[in-house]
C-alpha cells in the first residue's frame, strides 16, 4: 500500500498539471467549438453549423490571403532547406573558425527577437529602396527559418558516414552524383522534417509579415489579425481552426518523419540484432 503522503503528493501534482493544461487548451478548444456555433454573436451556444467555414472559404479576401501565405510558405521552405543543406555540408568540412562563425550566425538568428530582425530588414529594404511585398516577406521568413532548418539538417550531416561518399566516388560517381545518390537520400529524413517545420513557422508568422508586407500583400495571419480588431466573429474562429489544421498536420508529419527515420528504425534494428 502506498503511504498517504505519497498519494497526496501525487494527487497534488495531478491537480496542478490539469489546471495548467486546462488554461492552455481551453481557449483553443473555445475557438474550435465556436467555429461551429450557430449563434453569430457567440454569446450563447446556438447549435452546430458548418456555414462559417463555407463563408470563410468563399470570402475572396480570405482566399487571396490564404494563397499568399501558401506561396510564401512554399518559397520560404524551398530556399531555407537549400540554405540549410549547403550550410550543414560546409560546416562539416570547415575548420574550427568556420564552424564557430557558422554556428554563431545560426544561433544569432534564433536568439534575436523576431521584432528586431524584422525591423532591421524593414529599415534595410527602405534604405535600398526595395518595394515591400511578397518577396521581402519571404526574405524575412527565410532569415529565421533557415536557421532552424540548418540545425535540423546539421545534426544529420554530423552523423553521416563519410566513407559512404568515398565508396560512391570509388565506384565511379562524380561529386554531383555522389550528392544525388548517397548524400541526399541519407539526409532526406532531416530534410523532410526541416521542410515541414519551416512551412509551418512561415505559414503562421505574424510579426515579420507585418513589418515586411508593405501595403499590397496580406497573409492569412495578417488577415485574421485585421478581422479581430473589430469583433470576433464565428468566421474568424473557422479560419483559426483551418490554420490550426494546416499547422498541426505539418507538425504531425514532421514528428512522424523524425520517428520513422531515427527512433523507429533504431528500435527495429535493435530487435533484429
Amino acid at each position, binding site marked *: 500500500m502506498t503511504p498517504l503522503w505519497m498519494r497526496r503528493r501525487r494527487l497534488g501534482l495531478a491537480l496542478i498539471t490539469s489546471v495548467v493544461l486546462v488554461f492552455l487548451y481551453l481557449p483553443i478548444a473555445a475557438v474550435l467549438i465556436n467555429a461551429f456555433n450557430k449563434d453569430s454573436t457567440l454569446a450563447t451556444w446556438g447549435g452546430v453549423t458548418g456555414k462559417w467555414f463555407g463563408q470563410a472559404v468563399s470570402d475572396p479576401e480570405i482566399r487571396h490571403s490564404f494563397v499568399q501565405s501558401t506561396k510564401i510558405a512554399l518559397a520560404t521552405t524551398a530556399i531555407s532547406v537549400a540554405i540549410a543543406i549547403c550550410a550543414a555540408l560546409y560546416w562539416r568540412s570547415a575548420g574550427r573558425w568556420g564552424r564557430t562563425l557558422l554556428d554563431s550566425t545560426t544561433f544569432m538568428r534564433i536568439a534575436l527577437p523576431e521584432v528586431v530582425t524584422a525591423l532591421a530588414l524593414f529599415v534595410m529594404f527602405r534604405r535600398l529602396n526595395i518595394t515591400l511585398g511578397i518577396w521581402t516577406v519571404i526574405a524575412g521568413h527565410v532569415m529565421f527559418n533557415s536557421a532552424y532548418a540548418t540545425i535540423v539538417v546539421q545534426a544529420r550531416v554530423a552523423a553521416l*558516414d563519410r*566513407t559512404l561518399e*568515398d*565508396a560512391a*566516388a*570509388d*565506384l565511379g*560517381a562524380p561529386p554531383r552524383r555522389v550528392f544525388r545518390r548517397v548524400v541526399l537520400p541519407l539526409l532526406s529524413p532531416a530534410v523532410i522534417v526541416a521542410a515541414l517545420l519551416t512551412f509551418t513557422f512561415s505559414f503562421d508568422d505574424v510579426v515579420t509579415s507585418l513589418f515586411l508586407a508593405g501595403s499590397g500583400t496580406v497573409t492569412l495571419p495578417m488577415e485574421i489579425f485585421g478581422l479581430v480588431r473589430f469583433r470576433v466573429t464565428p468566421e474568424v474562429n473557422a479560419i483559426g481552426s483551418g490554420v490550426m489544421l494546416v499547422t498541426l498536420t505539418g507538425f504531425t508529419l514532421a514528428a512522424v518523419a523524425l520517428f520513422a527515420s531515427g527512433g523507429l528504425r533504431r528500435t527495429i534494428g535493435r530487435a533484429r540484432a
Partner: protein
Amino acid sequence: MAIVTKNTIGTNLDRPPATASGHGAVTLTGVSRQYGGVTAVDNIDLDVADGEFFALLGPSGCGKSTTLRLIAGLELPDGGQIQIGGREMTNVPAHRRPVNTVFQQYALFPHLSIFENVAFGLREARVRRSEIRARVSRMLQLVDLVGRDDSKPRQLSGGMQQRVALARALVLEPRVLLLDEPLAALDRKLRRQMQESIKDIQRKVGTTFVFVTHDQDEAFSMADRVAVMNQGSVDQVGEPRRIYERPRSLFVADFVGVSNKIPARVVRANGDGSYEVSVDSLGTTRVLGVDGLAPDEDAWLVVRPESMEFRVGSTAAALSATVVDVAYMGPQVVYRAATDVAGEVHVIAPGRRSGNASPGEELSVGWQPDAGWLLPRGN
C-alpha cells in the same frame, strides 16, 4: 647448403614477376603525403605486378591505409607519381580510376538493397539494364549470396556484408582491387574462412589485389608478395618466406614474428652474403646476413624460435640456458629460457615430439647453422 638457399631466394624475388604487357598493375614512384606537417607516406616506391595478390603490412599509423587511398584516388599525393596499368593517374580523381575498393567497415549504402549496392557502379557507368541484372546476379553467385537481392545491408551478418562489399567492387572488373583491412571487423574463425574465400575468388577472377593489413598471419597466408611498412616508408618488399627468413631490418624481423637476438661481432665478410662472426663464448661461426656489414661491427644474430632447439649437455654451438616457462599450445610447445649471453630466448618445439623440459631445468640451446641471420646492431 645455406649459401645455396641464399642465392636462389636472393636475386629475383624482390622484384615483381615479369608481365606480358611489360608494365605493372600499380607503380608508385617517390610518392609522399603529408597531413598538416605530419608525413603519413614518405617517398615510397612500389611496383605491383598484374594478377598479383599484394599485401601492405604494418602497424597502425605506418601509412599503409593512406597508401591505399592514394592508389584509389581518395587522397592526392604531395609529391611523386602514380601509374595504374601503365597509365599516368597521379592527379586523376577517384571516380575516373580503374580501381575499386573494399572498405574496412564495408561502407555499404544503407538506403539501398543488396542488388542496388552491387549495381551502384554499373549504373554510374551507364551499363544497359539487362546487362546490369546479369552481371550483378553472376557476382552475387560468386560471393555466395544468391537470393538476398532485396535485403538491406543491416539485415545481413558481418561476413555477408563483407561479401557484398567484395561483389560491389569486383562487378566493375577493376584493373586493381584494393582491400583496406577488410577482415578486421570479423571474429577469428570467420576471418580464417574469409581469408580462404578471398584467395579463391582472387584466383578465379585473376584481378590484381592490393590488400592492407596489420596482421602478419593474414598477409603471409594470403599474399604472393608483402610490403612491410614502417613510419611512412616501405622497409622491405618480397615473398613472405623471404621476409620472414631474411628480414632487412630489425623492425621487419620483430614485426613479422618473434626473434631471438644474440649479440655477435663481425669478424669477416665473405663477399657472398655470408659472414664469419664471433659470438661470445661460442667462438666463430658462419652465418648469412644483410649486405654491408663491416668487420669489427657489432651485430645481432637473429634466430627464429622454431629454429632453436634444446641440447643435452654443453656443446660448442649452444648457449647454456635455464628454462623459465613452458607453454603448451597444442601443435607446439613454447619455452622461455634465460641465457647469459642473449637474455631471455624463445624456443618453439613441435607439440608431439617435445621433450619434457620443465621450469628451472638447466640445458643448452642451439640452432641450426643455416637458421641464423645477421642484422646491424644500430636499428
